[in-house]
Structure formats: structure tokens, C-alpha cells
């Protein structure tokens, strides 16, 4: 369970999040909202990449401000642009990076990397430069690199924004198949229609917090009003 208590966030003197309190325990949670609504910054609070200016974020009781290292192991994070997330030149090296940071010995690393690449249909590319993968394959690699570390939660920040329809479906299937609880920031309303809970962010606040249909209706209304 992730508990957010009275959280406000200010970046460069600009208020980004205003007094948010939430408790997240569902398996599939979506965060939607317009550009600049604060949803990406909110996502970064969940694994301690950012710490709140006020209030606290706790993951299974651990405070992101005090136990950032442990929390990053618990909460995996997939970024919007896989090109900024893949940090090693060769596919299997990149998957092994997180495992190396966990202190897992080289043989086990190789085996775990092989398994996860198989699961995401990337086995044939394991020794290839990551740069030569297609956009969808890169995003799958980015997800594989996070999941191989076996986090308890996965946060995905606009994972389908840069992809074409076919690749969107591949990522969508990959998200459906996750064993972990997933929190997905997205503009893609199709992606989230079967989710357990949808949060609509607007201007640094939670505008709606409901099941998908009701929340998405509020979101569309708000967009039309503005």
C-alpha cells in the first residue's frame, strides 16, 4: 500500500501539487490529466525520485524521504521515452544493469536477463545494440529492465505516448500481464478502461477519483469546460 498524506510539491517556486492525500492499494490504478496537471511529478514521488515539499509518501510503511534506496527496489519506474531509460549499449547488458545494482552475482544475472527477454519476445536481440530496436521493442526492453528487479509495484509514466497502434497494444498487453500492482500515468483512455481506479489530476489537485467510466466522464467534461 502507498499512502500519500497532505503532500504538496513546489518546483522552482512553482506549486506543482497542492495538498494531496490518497491511499493506493488497488492492482491497476490510472492517473490521467492534462499536460502540466502535475501527474508526472506525482508519479516521481511514488518511488522517491522526488520528495514532497510538504507532507509524506509512504510505501508499505517506508518513508520515501528517509528510505529512498529501499523504496526504489520496491517501486519500479518506467519512463515515457525508452531512449532516455535504456542506459547500456547492448540489450542484455541493459537488463543486467539493475541486477548489478542489487548486488546479484554475474551468473544469476545472465540467467534472469535471459528469462525476462524471452518473456518479452526480445531473445533474438539480446546481443544486439539497443539503438537498433523498434520503438515498441525499446519500450518492452525498458519494462523488462525494471521488472527483472522484481519490484512490488510498477509505476509507468506515459508508456504508450510515443508508440503506434500496434505497439500500444503490445505494451497494453504487457501491463495487463503484470503480477505487480501497476500505477499508470497516461493520456491513452483506452488503456485504462478496465482498471480498478482512475485518478484525474488537474492543476496540481485530484479532480476525480473513481471507477474508470465515472472518472473519465468527469475528465472529458473538465476538458470541454476549459
Amino acid at each position, binding site marked *: 500500500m502507498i499512502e500519500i498524506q497532505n503532500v504538496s510539491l513546489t518546483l522552482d517556486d512553482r506549486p506543482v501539487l497542492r495538498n494531496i492525500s490518497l491511499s493506493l492499494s488497488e492492482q491497476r490504478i490510472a492517473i490521467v490529466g492534462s499536460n502540466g496537471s502535475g501527474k508526472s511529478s506525482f508519479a*516521481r514521488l511514488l*518511488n522517491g*525520485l522526488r520528495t514532497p515539499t510538504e507532507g509524506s509518501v509512504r510505501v508499505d510503511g517506508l518513508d520515501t524521504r528517509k528510505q529512498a*534506496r529501499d523504496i*526504489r*527496489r520496491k517501486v*519500479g*519506474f518506467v*519512463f515515457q*521515452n525508452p*531512449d*532516455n*531509460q*535504456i*542506459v*547500456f*549499449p*547492448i540489450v542484455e*547488458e541493459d537488463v543486467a*544493469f*539493475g541486477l548489478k*545494482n*542489487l548486488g546479484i552475482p554475474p551468473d544469476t544475472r545472465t540467467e534472469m536477463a535471459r528469462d525476462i527477454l524471452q518473456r518479452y519476445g526480445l531473445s533474438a536481440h539480446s546481443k544486439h*545494440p*539497443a*539503438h537498433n530496436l523498434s520503438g515498441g521493442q525499446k519500450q518492452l526492453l525498458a519494462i523488462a*529492465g*525494471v521488472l527483472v*528487479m522484481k519490484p512490488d509495484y510498477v509505476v509507468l509514466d506515459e508508456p504508450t505516448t510515443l508508440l503506434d497502434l500496434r505497439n500500444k497494444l503490445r505494451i497494453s498487453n504487457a501491463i495487463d500481464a503484470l503480477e505487480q500492482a501497476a500505477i499508470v500515468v497516461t493520456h491513452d483512455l483506452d488503456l485504462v478502461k478496465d482498471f480498478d481506479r482512475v485518478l484525474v489530476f488537474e492543476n496540481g489537485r485530484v479532480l476525480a477519483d473513481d471507477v474508470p467510466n465515472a472518472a473519465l466522464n468527469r475528465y472529458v467534461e473538465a476538458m470541454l469546460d476549459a
Partner: protein
Amino acid sequence: MLDLYSEGNSRLHTMKPGWKILGLAISGSLLFAVDNILFSIAFLAVTLALFAAAGLPLRRAWAQIRPVIWIFVLIMIAQALFNSWWVGLFVIIRFAVLLMLAGLLTLTTRSSEMIDGIEAGLRPLSRLGLRTRGISLAISLTLRFIPVLASVVREVREAQYARGLERNILALTIPAIVRTLKMSEDISDAIDARGF
């Protein structure tokens, strides 16, 4: 990885990079220590024989010195004017041997092997407080982002082509650098997010 390595399985290919580097260093020192043109000519013959032993055609040896041919001409003219053409020839042969030997090392050694060698060499220094983990990461990141940034430069060039600015260095570099700097934030977040 894109490097200048030339596939092969000769003794030179399989030798540890450290020995090859040592060999190159000794050869270079000898060439300058023994101030004798006959020695340099003999060394040239040995070098060409090494190319043959590595299964490399002689045009690969020639390719090592082709980019500096204009320097050779310059040296020849200067030496002929101020000393003698004999000294010019000597200097050029010594120079050519050095370039060919360095090229031979590059042609018979994979970059990844050399990088592994650098990392292994740095490891003992970690006890002195040097963050070798950071150095390894920096090397990998650079290799990863060279093709990414080359694509960025190419994309910017195409975009500027549409505006007739494809040969304007400012119009090419400014957007490329802005994008590079904007990427840096996400990349370092991504590295931290994976527990570095």
C-alpha cells in the same frame, strides 16, 4: 559495437590487449631510441609481416598512413630544405611504422575487450576511493548515446533542410544541444530509479 575491429583468429587477434599495448609501447620507444634508418627499415618489414600474419591485406597497412600523406609531403619538403631528403625519408618511415603498428592493435582488438581491460585496470584504484563504478557507467552511457545523439543531429539536419538551413552550424547544433541537456534529467532519474 561499431568499431574498427577486423574479424580474425590469428595469434595477434587472440593475444590479451595488455600485451599488445606493451608491445606497441616498446616498439615506439625502440624506434626513437635507435637513431638508425636501417633499423627503421627493418622494423617496417617486420610490421608488414605482422599484418600478413594477422591475415590482413597490405592495403589495410596503407590505410593507416593514407590520412597523413600530406604531412609526409610537408615533412619531406621541410627536411629537404633545412636538412637533407635523407633525414626526411628516415622521419617518414619511423612515423609510418608507428602508425601501422597502432593501427594493427586497433584492427586486431575488439573495443569491448579494451574497455574490459580499462575497467579491470581501474578496479584496484577503487580502494583508493576512486568511484570506478561511475567510470564504467560513464563509458557505457557514452557508447549508448553516441548513436542516439547522432540520430538527433541527423533529425535536426532534416528538419532544417526543410527550411534551407541544413548547412547552418548554429541551426544544427543549438537544437541538438538543447535536446541533449533536456534528456540528461530523465536519464539520471532512470539510472537512480534502477538502484544505482
